[in-house]
């Protein structure tokens, strides 16, 4: 006979304002098997938990139902309290009286009645609960970091410095990400390369970090502590061990007019190339789409000039398998491209460029060696216009959010322009100036007050060419929406930061969720910003939302601490909510008939074939068996099973049918 204790919480007035808690406790107290029933103001408080603990001890309770808030909130709290009083934690269930009842219905009898029903179904369920024990799984103490921008670099270094192994993969030929493209950084105006490249070198030299550049994640299986990753190392057409990085091949390659990705199309590169001089690793790759040999079948100049004979034209992609315990995703972001701004003439007028292109113009390592010259004719622009919110905060463009970094980098761009082009005039069209951050507002004020950048509050409707000038036509909303036209030599668009093209595909490979903008979703917007909904997978940097450098670095360090915390344990404890196949005495062994429909249903390949053999080694029965390490407890197999031989602990057939039968029965 069950002895169940029911504990009805008032949650201050959150529940008791609309539900008659005393009546719930009294009614439920009369049910069969309920040995104790009480209501109290705050069940989750210390005295509330003590009430549960002492009732378990004094009344010898065999099951507990706490009727309070959502189990998604406090189930761990109450299960822990039960465990402390000596009751198996899985004998505790929660009825959700707050989120599903008191907060969504008005005060009245119907609401109290619903509360009673909700408690009753769990009282009935708990009668069929079984004591369960946590499952222990080992942890592979190697982390996989996907994306080698500043966030990935920081996360890799932080994890590696705690003494754990890290595999860092980067899809481009070099690590560094967008930060390596930047000229100078706000709000200090220190050179981006100067602070980034030492970190890149540190990654390459760290004994705990294995770096795979020009590599992408092929597939991922497994679960927290025990992932199996397949990494595709794209062919570089190069034997990296032999290559010394002398760069002779890149100077001799005859294909010299490929737009450089690193310079955002403003510079040219060869078909065999190193993206930029400080690249890590500083070894070239052959771009097979543009290489003459791969197009026409002859050339091989690089092979001929290579002093160490390192070129391998027949090299194939290599798949590397790695066992990892945790994953940090730091794949970053991209910016909106030409066709997105027909009204601004991006793509049509060469002197309308993006913010990232301006970074390359202003960078000492850029195509103009740091001089601000317009792409069309190489002249120094005398008048330049910067457009904030090009795409951002524009629901009509499908990007209602703020890209966050643009206000700051536009102020920086305008400042850099004023420093480099004396006597030049710069204008910024903006909607609002969002300069939240340490020394950020001061930085923008400096641009306006010290460097004389003209800020115009208003949006630009159109940019067109007239007499060799770009006419920027907008309105000044601080002057009663007075139309403004500026004859500019160059226009810089602060294009919206958006999710990477392959973000959706990657999320599906990793089984993590993403928001409507395809940025990866964090587990909780405030309290779990670096976790994802999939245990063991963490986020860092702009793949989660637009982020600036300090935030990306902080997130990366946060994610690294989560990984280090995970790796500090030798074994992980997992909830025993998993599927099991029933076992019986010989000669039946199990009601499972071995149809293996469950195998086809299981998304985790957690169900294996088990063969029972007689003394002669002959197979006498073949049946399903669940691998408790792989099973995640979705229960899809349970609904599939024709003989009801597989069941899921915590949501068994008995429990679910009992719940349904208790739902509507009038007592």
């Amino acid at each position, binding site marked *: 006979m069950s002895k169940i204790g029911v504990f009805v919480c008032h949650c201050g007035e959150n529940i008791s304002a609309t539900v008659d808690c005393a009546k719930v406790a009294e009614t439920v107290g009369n049910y069969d098997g309920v040995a104790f029933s009480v209501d109290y103001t705050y069940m989750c408080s210390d005295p509330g938990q003590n009430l549960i603990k002492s009732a378990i001890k004094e009344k010898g309770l065999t099951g507990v139902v706490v009727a309070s808030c*959502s*189990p*998604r*909130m406090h189930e761990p709290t109450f299960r822990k309290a039960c465990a402390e009083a000596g009751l198996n934690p899985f004998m505790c269930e929660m009825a*959700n009286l*707050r*989120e*599903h*009842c008191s*907060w*969504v*219905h*008005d005060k009245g009898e*119907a*609401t109290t009645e*619903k509360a009673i*029903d*909700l408690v009753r*179904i769990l009282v009935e369920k708990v009668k069929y609960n079984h004591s369960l024990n946590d499952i222990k799984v080992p942890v592979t103490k190697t982390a996989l970091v996907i994306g080698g921008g500043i966030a990935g670099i920081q996360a890799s270094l932080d994890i590696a410095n705690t003494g754990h192994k890290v595999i860092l993969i980067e899809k481009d030929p070099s690590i560094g990400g967008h930060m390596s493209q930047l000229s100078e950084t706000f709000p200090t105006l220190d050179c981006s390369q100067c602070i980034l490249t030492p970190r890149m070198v540190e990654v390459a030299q760290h004994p705990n970090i294995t770096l795979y550049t020009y590599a992408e994640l092929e597939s991922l299986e497994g679960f927290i502590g025990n992932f199996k990753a397949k990494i595709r190392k794209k062919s570089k057409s190069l034997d990296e061990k032999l290559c010394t990085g002398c760069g002779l091949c890149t100077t001799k390659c005859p294909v010299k007019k490929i737009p450089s990705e690193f310079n955002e199309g403003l510079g040219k590169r060869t078909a065999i190339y190193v993206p930029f001089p400080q690249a890590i690793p500083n070894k070239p790759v052959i771009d097979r789409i543009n290489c003459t040999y791969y197009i026409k079948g002859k050339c091989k100049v690089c092979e001929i000039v290579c002093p160490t004979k390192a070129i391998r034209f027949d090299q194939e992609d290599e798949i590397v398998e790695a066992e990892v315990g945790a994953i940090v995703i730091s794949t970053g972001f991209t910016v909106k491209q030409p066709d997105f701004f027909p009204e601004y003439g991006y793509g049509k007028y060469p002197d309308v460029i993006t913010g990232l292109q301006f970074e390359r113009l202003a960078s000492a390592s850029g195509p103009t060696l740091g001089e601000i010259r317009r792409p069309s004719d190489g002249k120094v622009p005398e008048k330049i216009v910067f457009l904030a919110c090009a795409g951002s905060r524009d629901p009509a463009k499908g990007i209602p959010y703020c890209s966050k970094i643009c206000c700051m980098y536009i102020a920086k761009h305008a400042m850099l322009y004023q420093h480099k082009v004396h006597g030049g005039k710069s204008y910024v069209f903006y909607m609002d100036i969002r300069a939240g951050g340490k020394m950020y507002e001061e930085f923008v004020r400096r641009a306006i007050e010290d460097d004389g950048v003209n800020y115009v509050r208003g949006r630009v409707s159109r940019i067109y060419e007239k007499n060799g000038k770009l006419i920027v036509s907008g309105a000044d909303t601080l002057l009663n929406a007075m139309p403004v036209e500026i004859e500019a030599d160059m226009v810089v668009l602060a294009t919206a930061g958006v999710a990477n093209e392959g973000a959706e595909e990657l999320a*599906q490979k990793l*089984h993590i*969720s993403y928001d409507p903008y395809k940025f990866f979703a964090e587990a909780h917007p405030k309290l779990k910003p670096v976790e994802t*909904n999939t245990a063991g997978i963490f986020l860092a940097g702009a793949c989660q939302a637009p982020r600036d450098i300090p935030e990306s670095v902080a997130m990366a360090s946060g994610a690294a601490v989560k990984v280090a915390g995970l790796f500090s344990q030798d074994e992980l404890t997992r909830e025993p*909510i998993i599927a099991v196949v029933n076992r019986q005495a010989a000669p039946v062994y199990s009601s499972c008939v071995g149809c293996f429909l469950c195998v086809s*249903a299981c*998304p*985790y390949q957690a169900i294996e074939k088990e063969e029972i053999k007689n003394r002669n080694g002959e197979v006498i029965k073949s049946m399903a068996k669940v691998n408790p390490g792989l099973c*995640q*407890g*979705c*229960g*899809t197999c*349970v*609904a*599939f099973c024709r003989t009801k031989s597989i069941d*899921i602990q*915590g*949501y068994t*057939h008995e429990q*679910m*049918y009992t*719940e*349904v*039968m208790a*739902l*509507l*029965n009038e007592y």
Partner: protein
Amino acid sequence: MAEFEPKIVAFVCNWCTYAGADLTGTSRIKYASNVRIVRFPCTGRIDYMLLLKAFDEGADGIIVSGCHPNDCHYTSGNFHARRRWIMFRSLCDFTGIDTERIKFSWVSAAEGAKWADIVNATVASVRELGPYSEYKKVAKYPEREVSHG
């Protein structure tokens, strides 16, 4: 005469719709109190015989809801649930069970308002259909009285 109050049972998954219904609560969006929620780990776990059991026990309407396609916490449980629902629905049509009384939907953890709308819409439509007395007549088979003994 008081208005007919239908009994609605909701079978929801833990990760999306249960959390979505939690959000309805935290957003204090009011909806009809006729619904009783049963929590499952995943819609893929829902054995559709449970739906018939709910009608057996006197339910007038049923809601089944989980994560949106591609958003399943367990990758594909909701696709299995959807495929099973298609089969189950034609079986219901064949046997004469009123599929108008079963609402199949997707509610994500961020769609608190949608949950309230679905409950209200289901309650309203089932209220119009009236009590499911035809099913109850058939379901009251004689063995049932002794089966609990």
